[in-house]
């Protein structure tokens, strides 16, 4: 083990030292870790907001703070989790770290641009956080007009911050596309790439194509507030629904920016822990592109009750159901991979199986919501809240956790405590279901989302939901402990602890500064078990 490196004591973590060697590093691995530290912090802040929301909803009436404060906490929870955690999460941390490694490259195509993306992201994030100390916004993360035009809060600041973080997202996507096209190791065709790379590639296409539209939408919102140009303001002859069209033209594809890389991680985990070639490689690869393509023509399903035309509603409803096709292709291929594999249940695999379970629920309720008539009933209820948390948390966060544990030995060259890692899964998985499953029922009973208060009939289910949130929090804090303890005092990890076949496991743990001591040449597929 570890024979790949000529000097096993020199790796990307130890070759250079000092704070400057991090802040000016062009190494994609270090930049990935810098993203990790930042995003973990944002996740903590967004998570605390979530806990506060659940605490407030523990009982009806004012429990913890006022209705206005509740609106602010809700807005920051959404905005932080979407723009600072889930959208950048997998691509910026694990993608940055493993995309070049998995294709046998020494770095991403544009290392300086990669570092610049980190600074742009941090600048945007800090700008967003300044609003916590000026006037806190209360528009919800969607910044819907006309309220976002009228409210006297720091909408301009946070909207510009989202614009700036969007630029970072675009640049990362651009970098990944070129890296995937141009820097694959000799002998690696597009269809020899690991499926995580395929998913990052599909994600990057969405990032590059959709994010500029969000950019101009947010700039127009700023222009609306500063100049009153009137295109979103009904008082001035404008159309507030146009804002929703523009916003969801980005933000629906953004949902797939959040979930596609998670699906890529699941492909890696299922194959590695079944010790079996992935079933239907090309089908999974193309379904990623399929999801990316369909994602651009379904945005109207966020607007079934906005007053858009009925025919538009019917068309969007139909196209939205098409998303289920490539998604189901992935699900069935993962299940087929498990079939007759020698499955083992290490913590990354537990998270992958948890993903399958939760994502199936999230996906099927998504099809329910795509049905026009059902959505009119469920629209803006807790049913929707439960649905997208099953997809975003049950899906993406499960995959992030699985991916973290899977690649942890490669990133830090250490092993973590497996028993505790499995315990984090148990806590998060059970806690998640306890928190969010009652919300499906609450939604079906008619409890509207985003409200600070509710009628007594909803109380018991809300209490269960809040108690579940404590379990999730305990699970994540335990995971943080597992990771920190692993980094500090974990036993040394071998180059390939899981016996996986993709290229990142062929170099030492942690990898040397330029990833591979000798440029790898690829002769077989990524899942030749």
């Amino acid at each position, binding site marked *: 083990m570890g024979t790949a490196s000529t000097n096993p004591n020199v790796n990307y973590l130890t070759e*250079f030292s000092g704070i400057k*060697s991090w802040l*000016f*590093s*062009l*190494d994609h691995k270090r930049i990935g870790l810098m993203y990790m530290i930042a995003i973990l912090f944002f996740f903590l802040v967004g998570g605390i907001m979530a806990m506060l929301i659940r605490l407030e909803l523990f009982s009806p009436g004012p429990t913890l703070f006022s209705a206005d404060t509740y609106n602010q906490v809700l807005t920051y929870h959404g905005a932080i989790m979407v723009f600072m955690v889930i959208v950048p999460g997998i691509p910026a941390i694990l993608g940055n770290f493993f995309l*070049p490694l998995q294709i046998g*490259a*020494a*770095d*991403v*195509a*544009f*290392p300086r*641009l990669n570092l610049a993306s980190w600074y742009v992201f941090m600048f945007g994030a800090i700008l967003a956080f300044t609003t916590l100390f000026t006037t806190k916004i209360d528009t919800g993360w969607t910044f819907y007009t006309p309220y976002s035009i009228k409210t006297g809060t720091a909408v301009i600041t946070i909207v510009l911050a989202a614009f700036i973080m969007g630029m970072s997202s*675009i640049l990362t996507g*651009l*970098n990944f*596309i*070129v890296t995937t*096209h*141009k*820097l694959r190791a000799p002998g690696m065709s597009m269809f020899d790439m690991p499926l995580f790379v395929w998913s990052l590639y599909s994600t990057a296409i969405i990032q*590059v*194509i959709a*994010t*500029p*539209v969000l*950019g*101009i*939408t947010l*700039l*127009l919102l700023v*222009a*609306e507030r500063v*100049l*009153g*140009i*009137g*295109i979103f303001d009904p008082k*001035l*002859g*404008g*159309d507030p629904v*146009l804002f929703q069209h*523009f916003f969801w033209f980005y933000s629906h594809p953004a949902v797939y920016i959040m979930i596609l890389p998670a699906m890529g991680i699941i492909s890696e985990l299922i194959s590695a822990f079944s010790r079996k070639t992935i079933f239907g490689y090309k089908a999974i690869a193309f379904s990623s592109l399929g999801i990316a393509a369909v994602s651009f023509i379904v945005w109207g399903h966020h607007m079934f009750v906005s007053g858009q035309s009925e025919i538009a509603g019917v068309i969007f409803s139909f196209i939205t159901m098409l998303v289920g096709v490539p998604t189901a292709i992935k699900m069935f291929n993962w299940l087929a991979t498990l079939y007759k594999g020698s499955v083992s249940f290490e913590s990354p695999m537990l998270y992958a199986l948890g993903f399958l379970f939760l994502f199936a629920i999230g996906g099927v309720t998504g099809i329910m919501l795509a049905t026009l008539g059902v959505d009119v009933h469920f629209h803006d209820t807790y049913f929707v809240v439960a649905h997208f948390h099953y997809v975003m948390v049950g899906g993406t966060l499960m995959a992030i956790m699985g991916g973290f544990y899977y690649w942890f030995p490669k990133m830090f060259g250490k092993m973590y405590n497996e028993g505790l890692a499995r315990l984090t899964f148990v806590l998060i998985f059970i806690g998640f279901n306890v928190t969010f499953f009652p919300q499906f029922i609450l939604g079906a009973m008619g409890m509207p989302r985003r409200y600070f208060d509710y009628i007594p009939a909803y109380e018991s289910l809300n209490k269960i939901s809040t108690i579940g949130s404590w379990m999730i929090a305990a699970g994540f804090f335990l995971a943080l402990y597992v990771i920190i303890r692993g980094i500090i005092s974990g036993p040394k990890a071998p180059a390939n602890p899981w016996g996986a076949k993709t290229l990142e496991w062929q170099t030492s743990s942690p990898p040397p500064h*330029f990833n591979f001591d000798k440029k790898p040449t690829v002769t077989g597929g990524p899942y030749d078990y």
Partner: protein
Amino acid sequence: MTTNHSATAHHHSHHFDSAQHEYESDKEGIWLFMVTEILMFGGLFVAYAIFHQIYPEMFAEGAKQLSWKMGFFNTLVLIASSLTMALGIYYNQINKSNKAFWNLIATLVLAGIFLVVKYFEYASKFETGFLPGKFLNPETVGATSQNLGMYFGLYFCMTGLHGLHVVIGMILISWLAYRTKRGDFNANYYTPVEGVGIFWHIVDLIWIFLFPLLYLVG
């Protein structure tokens, strides 16, 4: 830490196989960036199209206030600047740095002329009260359309964002001119010149769409 390809022209960064490999990758990156630029302006064009459909008379009234002669002159200026930009690339590619330098300077001058004309256009709009959005008072300018401010809001946003791109282009072209003078570029290495060239052509192209939509379509 890593080798800097800009300092040593014919070398390439460590993670590429060859200078040609790096060149192709850089060029793909530039084109992808252009995709994002076009999509960003795309949002404005969609807004234009929608409200032009809803308020054709208001748009006609707004377009009448613009000087198509100045707009047309600026269109010619930008097309000429695209030619000099292309020549700047061409002469760098055939090792004629001096000619390349002067063509880049000509591009800068033309871009400057564009901005000066734009300044006079903006100034006259400001003087006569054709301000964007809520700052336009329909009574003082004698407008029949109550929401004429929307037209000028779109006009200033679209031409303003385009003007910002012209300014960024000028900064980049100045940098190219400096590096051309220093002798950084030759037949083997001219990626930055070509990259900025592509950017500049796209900026021109966007104006070629802005001009008829804002000045001519009534």
